[in-house]
């Protein structure tokens, strides 16, 4: 019920928004066909798709319409006039689907290409791994005596024929990355992985040719297959954040009505310059940052701050691009051109923060830095030792040296981190927590400060009726409130479950309230100075509206943005974990202070702007302590990106959710604690995994160097080390029944 009300509301706004022109954004291809891509919201089902596509197809000239439900895009191609684009937009918006321009220039080409390369690699390596296993199982479970020499040789050749092309094809993401890092004279986990895969393949090929025993094609391709899956999930999460940022900017696309020489001209938003004067009608999105010249109105800031209550704006007040003008038409003078406005700045801030964030070195890369030189030097010395000092021919010497490299279990090392991450991911997912970046766990485990936004994070983000009222008063108020979509009205309606009164002559007076008649008496519900003008002004912490019944009574309804149910427990728990909570809020000081004192938080900062928030985090980062940011508004997005690791509730805006490393569902804050605890445990397990790999190497490397490693020992050692690592990782899901 509530949901439909909200969406209806938005639809109305967008209908008005549609007076804009889309034709300047039509693209023409070589065959002289026009095409345009729109972003369309509220597509829920098959009939929505059908309705939109059908109603556009009936038009002449149109030869291609395709709704993409997953990305909410609508692509139209037609021949003839460009102007038709405006007609299309109008048709779709009149069907009840809010439409805006999707004007994102080639933003995701790289990303899409990258993604496709990875998927293809996964497919190829998966195919090869499965087929190789068919053959390898045969090889493992028999010997020359039972199988016959010729069959065995056939099997080995088939394995190499399947494996080699697949390895070359699907190993590329790792090989390129390793090469890039090496050229920069650095190293990461891809270097040992690539080396191990390449060397394993080469030695296996060499052994196949010479009818040897050391054939490990299956290990190499399996390793690639598993690692590729992890890599793909990583790319997916990172790409999403960038995409939503660009899409947000494109939502600003379209046109605005600019007044030039006392005439109204329609101009693409991109071309708006400082000093232009723009008229904005009711329900229209404000296209640029500016100052109000004429008119006073209310502005829906929810895009920027997540604040549900509209804010009043009068002459000389600042307004920001992306917010919506609600109650009266206004004229503004543009103070910043599109490249500099608040929204663009938020996206820029985020991008900047993302760059500085990548400085974090993962545990795996640290391990790689230690591992690579030691192991490779060991391999080199083994070769030199056997060849120069033990008078062995160079081929067997090389074979022993390569065995050293392979036996150092790159498998176990490669799996040490991803397995734990997948398992942690799984166990968090069951609690409605989505982990988007693997690094998040590592950083979360060391977290020292938790920075919390107030509205929508500590609190629910919706006004809630507080105090007690008589049933009769509530009934009257709800009967009036029923006709309004204001957040306060909705809150009153939610509170009252009984029968509504039958009112006459109901009118909603925008910016004031609702009035109506019951049995000849005038009822008013709304702002104090409108419904109860005689009441004195007092400065209140709570937001309130007043109900007046003609000549009878005046009742004040107070509202408060309520804390989440478990906020206090969570804060206490955070403190117990030795983490310091800090509140950063854009809200008024007295409100923030009240909440901070109630929660027992000593560090709180109020009236912080977007820039101040992320600046604050940057300064705090200088202490070299890991910082966790929890927030939900668009104004938190740069801070989320700036912090080492970030969490946002699933009620947050798309862009905020996509920026955050972790997203949790539900009304409770407790997932924050679960995350930190799982992270601590995961990192412990990762370290144990590496430790196991090291212990194993202490035994295996000397044996390999002496040349004692037979294929049997190698096979047992390699699979057992991987099994140990996987087994240890599974301990994550044990013993943690408490949460």
């Amino acid at each position, binding site marked *: 019920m509530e949901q439909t009300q909200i969406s209806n509301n938005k639809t109305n706004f967008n209908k008005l928004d549609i007076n804009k022109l889309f034709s300047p954004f039509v693209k023409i291809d070589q065959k002289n066909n026009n095409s345009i891509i729109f972003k369309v919201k509220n597509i829920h089902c098959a009939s929505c*798709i059908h309705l939109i596509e059908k109603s556009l197809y009936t038009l002449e000239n149109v030869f291609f319409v395709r*709704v993409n439900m997953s990305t909410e895009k609508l692509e139209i191609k037609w021949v003839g006039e460009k102007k038709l684009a405006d007609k299309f937009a109008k048709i779709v918006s009149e069907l009840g689907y809010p439409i805006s321009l999707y004007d994102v220039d080639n933003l995701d080409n790289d990303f899409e290409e990258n993604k496709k390369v990875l998927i293809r690699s996964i497919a190829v390596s998966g195919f090869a791994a499965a*087929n190789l296993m*068919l053959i390898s199982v045969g090889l493992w479970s028999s010997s020359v005596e039972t199988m016959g020499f010729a*069959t065995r040789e056939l099997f080995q050749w088939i394995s190499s024929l399947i494996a080699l092309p697949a390895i070359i094809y699907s190993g590329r993401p790792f090989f390129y990355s390793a090469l890039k890092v090496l050229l920069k004279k650095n190293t990461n986990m891809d270097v040992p992985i690539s080396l191990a895969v390449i060397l394993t393949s080469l030695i296996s090929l060499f052994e196949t040719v010479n009818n040897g025993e050391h054939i490990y094609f299956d290990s190499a391709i399996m390793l690639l297959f598993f690692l590729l899956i992890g890599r793909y999930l990583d790319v997916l999460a990172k790409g999403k954040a960038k995409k939503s940022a660009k899409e947000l900017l494109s939502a600003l696309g379209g046109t605005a009505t600019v007044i030039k020489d006392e005439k109204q001209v329609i101009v693409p938003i991109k071309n708006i310059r400082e000093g232009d004067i723009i008229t904005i009608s009711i329900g229209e999105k404000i296209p640029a940052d500016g100052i109000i010249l004429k008119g006073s109105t209310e502005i829906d800031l929810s895009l920027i701050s997540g604040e549900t209550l509209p804010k009043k704006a009068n002459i000389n007040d600042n307004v920001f691009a992306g917010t919506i003008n609600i109650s009266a038409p206004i004229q503004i003078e543009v103070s910043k051109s599109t490249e500099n406005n608040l929204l663009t700045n938020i996206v820029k801030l985020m991008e900047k923060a993302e760059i500085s964030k990548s400085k974090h070195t993962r545990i795996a890369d640290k391990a790689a830095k230690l591992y690579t030189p030691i192991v490779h030097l060991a391999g080199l010395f083994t070769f030199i030792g056997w060849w120069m000092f033990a008078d062995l021919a160079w081929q067997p010497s090389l074979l022993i040296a390569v065995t050293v490299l392979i036996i150092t279990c790159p498998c176990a090392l490669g799996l040490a981190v991803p397995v734990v991450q997948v398992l942690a991911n799984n166990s968090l997912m069951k609690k409605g927590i989505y982990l988007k970046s693997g690094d998040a766990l590592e950083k979360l485990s060391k977290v020292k400060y938790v920075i919390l936004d107030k509205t929508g994070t500590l609190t629910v983000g919706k006004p809630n009726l507080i105090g007690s009222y008589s049933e009769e008063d509530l009934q009257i108020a709800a009967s009036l409130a029923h006709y309004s979509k204001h957040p306060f009205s909705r809150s009153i309606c939610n509170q009252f479950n009984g029968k509504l009164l039958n009112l006459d002559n109901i009118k909603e007076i925008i910016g004031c309230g609702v009035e109506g008649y019951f049995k000849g008496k005038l009822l008013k519900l709304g702002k104090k100075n409108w419904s109860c003008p005689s009441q004195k002004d007092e400065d209140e912490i709570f937001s309130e509206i007043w109900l007046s019944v003609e000549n009878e009574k005046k009742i004040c309804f107070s509202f408060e943005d309520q804390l989440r149910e478990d906020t206090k427990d969570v804060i206490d728990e955070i403190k117990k974990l030795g983490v310091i909570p800090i509140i950063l809020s854009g809200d008024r000081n007295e409100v923030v202070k009240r909440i901070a004192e109630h929660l027992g938080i000593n560090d709180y900062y109020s009236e912080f702007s977007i820039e101040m928030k992320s600046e604050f985090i940057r300064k705090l980062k200088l202490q070299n302590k890991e910082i966790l940011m929890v927030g939900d508004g668009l104004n938190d997005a740069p801070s989320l990106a700036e912090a080492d690791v970030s969490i946002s509730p699933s009620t947050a805006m798309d862009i905020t959710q996509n920026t955050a490393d972790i997203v949790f569902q539900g009304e409770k804050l407790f997932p924050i604690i679960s995350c930190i605890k799982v992270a601590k445990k995961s990192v412990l397990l990762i370290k144990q995994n590496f430790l196991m790999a090291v212990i194993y190497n202490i035994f295996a490397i000397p044996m390999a160097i002496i040349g004692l490693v037979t294929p049997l020992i190698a096979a047992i050692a390699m699979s057992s080390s991987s099994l140990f690592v996987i087994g240890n990782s599974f301990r994550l899901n044990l013993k943690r029944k408490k949460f």
Partner: protein
Amino acid sequence: MNILLYLIPIALTLGLIGLLAFLWTLKNNQYEDLKGASERILIEEEKEKNERD
């Protein structure tokens, strides 16, 4: 053991067909709109000119 001479190529060919089919679907952007595809099945077909180009 002669049976292997048939079975291995058959097994590999089947696998390869699967792989190629997957790569083909990928190339045709069939995974672009998974949500939409599951809903579109409910649309009754009239004589649509809704062809992909």
